[in-house]
C-alpha cells in the first residue's frame, strides 16, 4: 500500500469471561488496515467476532492484547469512559431504535457530538444550528425534523438520523456495525446509496461490518472474512467474492442464495459438494478453526494453526491447503469434474 493507513490494527485479541472461569477468545490475533477513503468490509457469521473488533476499536470491548493505531498514533486500549475521546472515529449501529435517545429531539441528538467537541476545544457553538440543518438536509430528512422526536420517524429515517450524528463532526473513519441489516430492501438501498454518496463527498473511510455478502461486495474495496475470531481470508472485494481461496469463504458464498432459480439450483449443488458429515467443533488452539466443517481438511489442519499467506496483489489466506485446492468457478465447471478432483482429499 502506498499511503499510510488511517487505521492499523495489529495482533488484536479480545477475551470475554466464559463459563467456569475460563476465558472465551472472541477475537484472536486479528490484523487489519483501513486506508484513507477506503471501505474495508468485514464479513462473518454470528460469533465470528466481527462486531467485537469494532467494539475494541471504539473502546467498548476489553482489549487483551494487540495495538490499534489511528493516524499513526496508538490508541489507549482502555475503555472509552476512561480514555480521551477521539471524534475522528464515529459509529453507526444496527438497531435504529436503541441508538437514538427517545427523550431528545433529533436536532439535539445530531448536535450533541458537535457541541461536545466544540466545548472541549473551547470554541464557540454559534453556528451549530446551521450545521445541523445542513447535515439533516444532506441525509435527506425534512426541514422540520430537528424539532421532532425519534419515535415519529420510521426505521430508515432513524438510520439517517444516526448517520447525520456520526458525520456532523466530520470524522475520518466511520464504523458501520450492521448498519443496514435491520432495514427493508428498498430502505437498505437508499441508505447504502447515502453512505457511498457521503463517502465520495467527504472522503471518509468505512469499517463496514455485515453478515450479508452482497452488501459487503457492493460497498467494500477490500474484504476481511472472519470465522470464530480469526481472519480466514482477505483481499479485494472482487477477488474474494469472485474467486474465493479459503474453503470457508467458498462455503459462505455458496450458502448465500442468488436471485435466480436456475443459478440458485447450481449453487445449491455446489453447496452440496462442500457438505460433509458434521464433526464436533474442534477446540480453538493449534488447529484451523474451520477444519471440522472443511471438506478439504487433512490431518495437518487439525494439528497446526494456519498462518495468513499472501495470495495475489493484496490478498492473503489462512489455509494449509492453499494452492492445492481445485478452483471454484461456480456456474461454469460441470459438477462431475469437480467431484472427481476433490474426492481423494477427504
Amino acid at each position, binding site marked *: 500500500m502506498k499511503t499510510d493507513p488511517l487505521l492499523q490494527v495489529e495482533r488484536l485479541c479480545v477475551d470475554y469471561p466464559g463459563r467456569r472461569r475460563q476465558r472465551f477468545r472472541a477475537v484472536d490475533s486479528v490484523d487489519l488496515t483501513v486506508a484513507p477513503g477506503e471501505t474495508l468490509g468485514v464479513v462473518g*457469521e*454470528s460469533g465470528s467476532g466481527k462486531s467485537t473488533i469494532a467494539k475494541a476499536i471504539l*473502546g*467498548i470491548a476489553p482489549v487483551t492484547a494487540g495495538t490499534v493505531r489511528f493516524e499513526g498514533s496508538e490508541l489507549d486500549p482502555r475503555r*472509552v*469512559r476512561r480514555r480521551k*475521546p*477521539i*471524534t475522528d*472515529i*464515529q*459509529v453507526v449501529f444496527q438497531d435504529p431504535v*436503541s*441508538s437514538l*435517545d*427517545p*427523550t*431528545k429531539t433529533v436536532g439535539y*441528538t445530531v448536535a*450533541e*457530538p458537535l457541541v*461536545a*467537541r466544540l466545548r*472541549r476545544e473551547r470554541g464557540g457553538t454559534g453556528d451549530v444550528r446551521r450545521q445541523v440543518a445542513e447535515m439533516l438536509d444532506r441525509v435527506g430528512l425534512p426541514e*422540520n425534523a430537528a424539532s*421532532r*422526536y*425519534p*419515535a*415519529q420517524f*420510521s426505521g430508515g429515517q432513524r438510520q439517517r438520523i444516526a448517520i447525520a*450524528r456520526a458525520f456532523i*463532526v466530520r470524522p475520518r473513519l466511520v464504523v458501520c456495525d450492521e448498519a443496514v441489516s435491520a432495514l*427493508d*430492501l*428498498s430502505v*437498505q*438501498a*437508499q441508505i*447504502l*446509496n447515502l453512505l457511498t454518496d457521503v463517502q465520495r463527498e467527504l472522503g471518509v473511510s468505512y469499517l463496514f461490518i455485515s*453478515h450479508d*455478502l452482497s*452488501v459487503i*461486495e*457492493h*460497498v467494500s474495496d477490500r474484504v476481511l472474512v472472519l470465522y470464530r475470531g480469526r481472519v480466514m481470508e482477505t483481499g479485494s472485494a472482487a477477488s474474494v467474492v469472485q474467486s474465493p481461496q479459503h474453503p470457508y469463504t467458498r*462455503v*459462505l458464498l*455458496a450458502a*448465500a*442464495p*442468488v*436471485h435466480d*432459480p*436456475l443459478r*440458485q439450483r447450481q449453487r*445449491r449443488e455446489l*453447496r452440496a459438494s462442500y457438505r460433509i458429515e*458434521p464433526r464436533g467443533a474442534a477446540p480453538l488452539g493449534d488447529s484451523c478453526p474451520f477444519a471440522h466443517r472443511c471438506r478439504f481438511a487433512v490431518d495437518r489442519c487439525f494439528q497446526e494453526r494456519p498462518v495468513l499467506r499472501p495470495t495475489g496483489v493484496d490478498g492473503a489466506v489462512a489455509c494449509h491447503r492453499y494452492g492445492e485446492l481445485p478452483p471454484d468457478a461456480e456456474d461454469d465447471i460441470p459438477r462431475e469434474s469437480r467431484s472427481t478432483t476433490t474426492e481423494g482429499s477427504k
Partner: protein
Amino acid sequence: MTTLPEPAPRPAANAANTGLVRSVLRSPRGAIVVAFLVVLILACALAPLIAPYDPLAQHLSAVRSGPSGGYWLGTDSLGRDLLSRLLHGGRSSLLGVLEAVVTLLIVALPTGLLAGYLGGTFDRIAMRVAEVVMSVPVVIILLAVLSIFNHSMTSAMIAFGVLGSSGLMRVIRGAALTAREELYVTAAELMGLSRLQVVVRHVLPRCRGAIIIQASLFAAVTLGVQTGLTFLSLGPPPPAATWGGMVADAASVFNQDAWMLVPPGATIALTVLAFGLLGDVVRDVSAEKYAAAPASRRKRRTGTPETAGRPEPATDMLLSVRDLSVATDGERPLTLLDAVGFDIAAGETVGLVGESGSGKTMTARAVIGLLPGNCQITSGRVVFDGSPVQDLDQRAFRKLRGRRIAMISQEPMAALDPSFRIGSLVAEVVRAVDGIKGKAAHARAIELLRMVEIPDPEAVARRFPHQISGGMAQRVAIAMAIAGRPELLIADEPTTALDVTVQAEILDLLRSLQQQNNMAILLVTHDWGVVADVCTKVVVMYAGQVVETAPAGAVFDRPAHPYTRALLLSSPENTHIGERIQAIPGSVPTPQRWPAGCRFASRCDLAQPGCTEGAIPVKDISEGRLSRCLRVDTLLGGEARR
C-alpha cells in the same frame, strides 16, 4: 411477528414544544389535581393571614358547633375553629412531606444512577447499604429520632426520607442498568461526553417515569405516616394544630359528634389522592411528549372489488384465499389487508414477498386464524381443502391447527418454553395431535427430531432450549410443526434470524420434508434469494394488496409489476460493482395514507395520471400470472425489447 403499522409521522409536533407544566394543565385530571394542590398549599402557607380565627383560641360558647356562618367547618370540643386549625396544621404537614421527598431525592437519585450506570464496586457497596437500611424497622427509628430531637417533625421527616430512599435507589438503579445497555448511551460515551453528562442527559431521562411515580407515592405515604405520628401526639405537642392531632381529637368524641372527623379526614384523603394522581399525570404527559404522534385517521374509501363478479375460490386447490380484507376494530376501523387473493396447490411452495407493512404476516395469520386481538376479517373467503375456514371459531380452528395446518415463525426460541427439555416439548405436541402417551410419544418425538436431521436426537432431546443454537432451535420448531403431518406449513420468515450457512440447511430441510410428505408451504419472506431457492410461485404484496402473482422463474426474469421490478433492482446483488443501487424513492405508505388509486404510483417511474384515479383492477396476463398494474403491457413490452 406482526408489526402493526407505524403511525404516520405528523409534520408539526405541537405537543413536543409545549412545556411540561402546560401539558399537565391541559389534561383534565392534571388541571383538577394541580388546582386542588395549589389552593391547599396557598391556603396553608397564608394561614396566618386568611384563617378566620387563631387556631388555639377557644370559643367555649360554641363547642362542637358544626358548620355554620361563623365557623365554616364547625368547632371542636374546646370551641376552636376547625378551618383555622386545618390551615395551620397543614403548614407543618405539607412542609414535612416536602422535607421527606427532597431528602429522598437527594439521597436516592445520585446513588441509584451511579450504582446502575457505573456498576462495579460502587454498585456493590451501595446495594449492601440499601439492604441494611431496608431491614431497619422504620417506625422504631422514627420514634428514636423524635425523642432525641425533642419532637422535631423536621428531623423525623428527614430521617424518613433517608430510610425510604433505599427503595427508590433500587428502582432507579434498575432503570439505569437498562438504560446503560442502550446504544444511544454508548454513542454518547463515544462522542466524548463526561460520565456526569452521559448520566444527566441520557440515563436520567430514562428513569424519569419511575422517579416521578415513586416520589409521588412516597409523598402520599409520608403524609400518612406523619398524620399517624401526630395522631399519637409524637409530633409538636398539643395544643399545636396538626392534622393527626385533629383526627385524634375527633376520634375521642366520635360517638357524640361524627362531623369533627370529616374536615381533617377528607383533607388528608384528598391530599394523598392528589399526590398519587399528580405522579400519574406527570409521568403520562412527559412520556407522551416524545412518543410517536397519534396519527389522524381519516376515513378512506376502501378499494372496490376488482372484478365485476365476486371472485370464486378455486375448488381444486389446497388453500384458496379470495377477496380477504382485514381491518382493526374500533369506531374508525383501519384497513390493513385489502382484497387479498391467492391459491396454493398441494405440495406447492408459495412465497409471500413484501417489505414490512405490506401485510404479508397479517395474511399468513388470517389464514391460520391467529389475527391479533384488535383485528378481524371484514370480508372475503379462505377455503382450505374445499371447506371455508374464515368463520370458524377458535375451537374448530384448533382441530385444523397443528394437524392439517402448522406454522413456524422467525423466532424459534420464542416457541420453545425454556423450562422444559426439548424431548418433552416435542412429546407434548405429539400427545396433542396423535393422542399417544408415555414411551410411545417420546419415541415419536425422537423420530421427529431425526426427521429434521438433528444429529444424535436422543442427546438433544435431553437438553434445554437455551443449550441449543438458533439453527437447531428452528429444526426443533419444524419437528413440532410436522408432528401432526400437516398438509400446509406456514413459515413466517423462518430463516431471517439465522446465518446464511444455517439458512441454507434449513431451506434444504424444508425442501426435503416437502418432497417426502407432499406438504405445501406458504413461505413469508422479504428475501428474494430464499424465494429463488425454494419457491415455485410468488405472491408479491405492497401496502395491503397483492400486486403480482407469478411463477418463481418468471418473476425474476420479467416482473409484471413496477414494484416487483423496483424491489429486485434495489438489491445490491442485482447492481453492478461501482454503480449506484437503483433505490426506490420515498417510502411505503402507512394504512392511514393509502391513496384511492394505485398505492405504488407516487414511487413508480411508469405512473400516469390514470394510475391515481381509482382502484386498480387485477389483470390476468397469461398462464396464471396476475398483475395489479394499468401499464403492465408497457412494462413487459419494454422488458422484452431489452
